[in-house]
C-alpha cells in the first residue's frame, strides 16, 4: 500500500514538472512580448483552394443527380456530353441554358503546403537512405568479421573514416566533390552521404550482433551441410537481427534526424521548408515547434513499429 501511495505521489510530481515547463515557456514568451500566431501554421501544412468548373461549350444542363454528385451537360453543337463529378458547390439546376465559360460548379481542392512537402521529402530521403544503409551495414559488418585481411582492413578503414568525421562535412564532400565528379543531383548526393554515414554505424551493430551469437549455432548449421552463406542467412542473421533491433531502432531514428542536415545542399526537406515558412510568416517559434512535432511524429511512428516487431519476434523466447 505504501509503495502505491509513493507511485501516485511521484506521478503527480511528474505532471507538476511538466506543467511548470509549459507555464515557463508561456511566461518567457510574454516577457519578450511575443505574440503567438498559431493560426498561421495550418495553411502551410494543408490548404483548401476552390477550383471553378466552367462550361466547355454552349449547351444545356440535361441532368443533375444531387445524390451521386454528377451533372451532365449537353452540347448545342453535337459535341460529346460534358460530365462533372464530385463537385462541392452547384451553380446551375436542371434545364438551365449555359454558355461557354459559365461557372457550373465549384470543387474544393486540397493543396499540400510547404511543410507537408518537406515532411514527404524527409520521409523519402530517410527511407531510401535507410535501405542503402542497411545493405552497406550488413556487408561491411560481415566483411569486418571476415578472415580475409583485405576485406577486414577495408571495412575497418571505412568505419573509422566515416565515424571520425562530421556528417555535415561528409555531405559537403559528397555534394561538391563526389557529386561534381560523378555528376550527381542533390537528392542522390544527399542520400549517398546519409547512407554511407549510417551504414558505418549499422556495420558495427551488425558485427556486434553476429559476435553475440554462440559459435555453436554456426557449427550446428555447418554440421547439417549448410554452407557459410546459408548458415548466415537462415541461422545466424535472424537471431542477430532480433538481438540488435533496439540499437538498430536508435540508428534509424538518428537517420531521420540527421536527414535535416541535407538542407544545407538545398534539398527542401522538413527543416529547409521550416526555414522558408519562417521567412514568410515571421512566426519562428510556432514554425519550429511545428517542425519539431512533425519530426517527433515520424520518429515516434518508427519506434512504435519497431516495438511491435520486437514483440512479434519475442514469440520464441
Amino acid at each position: 500500500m505504501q509503495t502505491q501511495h509513493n507511485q501516485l505521489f511521484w506521478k503527480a510530481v511528474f505532471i507538476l514538472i511538466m506543467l511548470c515547463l509549459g507555464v515557463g515557456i508561456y511566461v518567457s514568451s510574454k516577457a519578450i512580448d511575443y505574440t503567438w500566431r498559431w493560426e498561421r501554421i495550418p495553411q502551410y501544412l494543408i490548404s483548401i483552394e476552390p477550383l471553378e468548373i466552367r462550361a466547355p461549350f454552349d449547351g444545356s444542363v440535361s441532368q443533375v443527380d444531387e445524390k451521386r454528385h454528377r451533372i451532365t451537360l449537353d452540347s448545342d453543337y453535337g459535341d460529346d456530353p460534358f460530365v462533372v463529378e464530385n463537385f462541392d458547390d452547384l451553380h446551375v439546376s436542371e434545364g438551365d441554358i449555359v454558355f461557354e465559360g459559365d461557372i457550373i460548379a465549384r470543387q474544393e481542392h486540397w493543396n499540400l503546403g510547404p511543410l507537408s512537402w518537406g515532411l514527404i521529402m524527409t520521409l523519402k530521403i530517410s527511407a531510401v537512405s535507410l535501405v542503402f544503409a542497411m545493405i552497406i551495414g550488413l556487408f561491411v559488418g560481415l566483411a569486418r568479421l571476415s578472415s580475409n585481411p583485405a576485406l577486414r582492413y577495408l571495412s575497418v578503414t571505412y568505419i573509422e573514416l566515416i565515424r571520425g568525421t562530421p556528417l555535415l562535412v561528409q555531405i559537403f564532400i559528397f555534394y561538391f566533390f563526389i557529386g561534381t565528379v560523378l555528376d550527381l543531383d542533390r537528392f542522390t548526393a544527399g542520400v549517398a552521404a546519409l547512407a554511407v554515414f549510417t551504414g558505418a554505424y549499422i556495420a558495427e551493430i551488425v558485427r556486434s550482433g553476429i559476435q553475440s551469437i554462440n559459435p555453436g549455432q554456426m557449427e550446428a548449421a555447418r554440421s547439417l551441410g549448410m554452407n557459410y552463406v546459408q548458415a548466415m542467412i537462415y541461422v545466424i542473421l535472424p537471431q542477430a537481427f532480433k538481438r540488435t533491433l533496439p540499437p538498430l531502432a536508435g540508428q534509424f531514428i538518428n537517420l531521420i534526424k540527421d536527414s535535416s542536415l541535407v538542407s544545407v545542399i538545398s534539398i527542401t526537406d522538413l527543416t529547409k521548408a521550416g526555414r522558408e515558412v519562417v521567412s514568410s510568416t515571421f512566426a519562428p517559434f510556432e514554425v519550429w515547434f511545428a517542425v519539431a512535432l512533425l519530426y517527433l511524429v515520424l520518429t515516434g511512428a518508427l519506434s512504435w513499429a519497431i516495438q511491435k516487431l520486437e514483440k512479434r519476434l519475442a514469440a520464441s523466447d
Partner: protein
Amino acid sequence: MTNADNKSIIVAIDVDKIYPNGCHALKKVSLTVEKGEVVVIIGPSGSGKSTFLRTLNQLETISSGSIVVDGFDLNSKHTNINRVREKVGMVFQSFNLFPHKTALGNVMLSPRKVLKKPEQQAEEEGRELLYKVGLADRMDNFPSHLSGGQQQRVAIARALAMMPDIMLFDEPTSALDPEMVGEVLDVMKTLAADGMTMVVVTHEMGFAREVADRVVFMEEGELVFEEQPDRFFSSSNSRLQRFLGQVL
C-alpha cells in the same frame, strides 16, 4: 573408396592436430570404423576425444595425417565438405538448437535449404522423426520451452533428417540433468539397433558396455587402447585401469 575393404566407412590414419598456440591435441591417432558399427570413445577431459570427433566432419582441421569418411578424402581439395557433412550427422553437448525455430522448424530447415526438399515432404519426414524420438506433442514448441532432454532429442532428429550414413555424438548427455539422461540414451540405443554407424564420445560407461561394438580409450591426445566392451572393461592396461578407477 580406395581403402582396404569396402565396409570401412571411416578411416583415420596418423591424425595429428597442433593448435597455433602449440598445444598438441592429437598425436598420431588412427581409427577405423566399419559400416553399422558403434564406437564409443572415452577418456579424461582434455584427452582430445572431442577434438578427434570434430575432425571427422572437419569442424576442426588437422595438421597432418589422413581421414576418409564415407568415401570422401577430407584432405583433398576436390572434396566439398558440405556434401560430406550432409552425410555425417552431429549431436553436440550443448544441443545448439536454433532458438528462433520451433522443434519442427529445426528439423525441417536443412532438408529444405540444403537438400531442397519440398516443404510438404520435409514437414512429413520431420514430424515422423520427432514422433520417433518421442516428441509428437512438442513439434511446435520453441527450444526455450523444452527441457534439456527434449532439446537433445530434437537435435538428434534434426541430424537424422539429413538421412546421414554416420552419426557423431559429442558428449550428448553431459549437459543434462540426471533424470533426462535415460531418454536420450534410449533414442541412441534404438538408433544403434537400427544399424546406424555411430561414433560416440561419452562418460556413460553403462552405454559403452551395453551398446558399443568397440570402445576406444584416449588420453593426452593419444589413442591408448581399443577393444570390444567385455574385454575392454576387464583389460589390465595400466593407464586404462587408472582412468576407470577414477570414474567407476
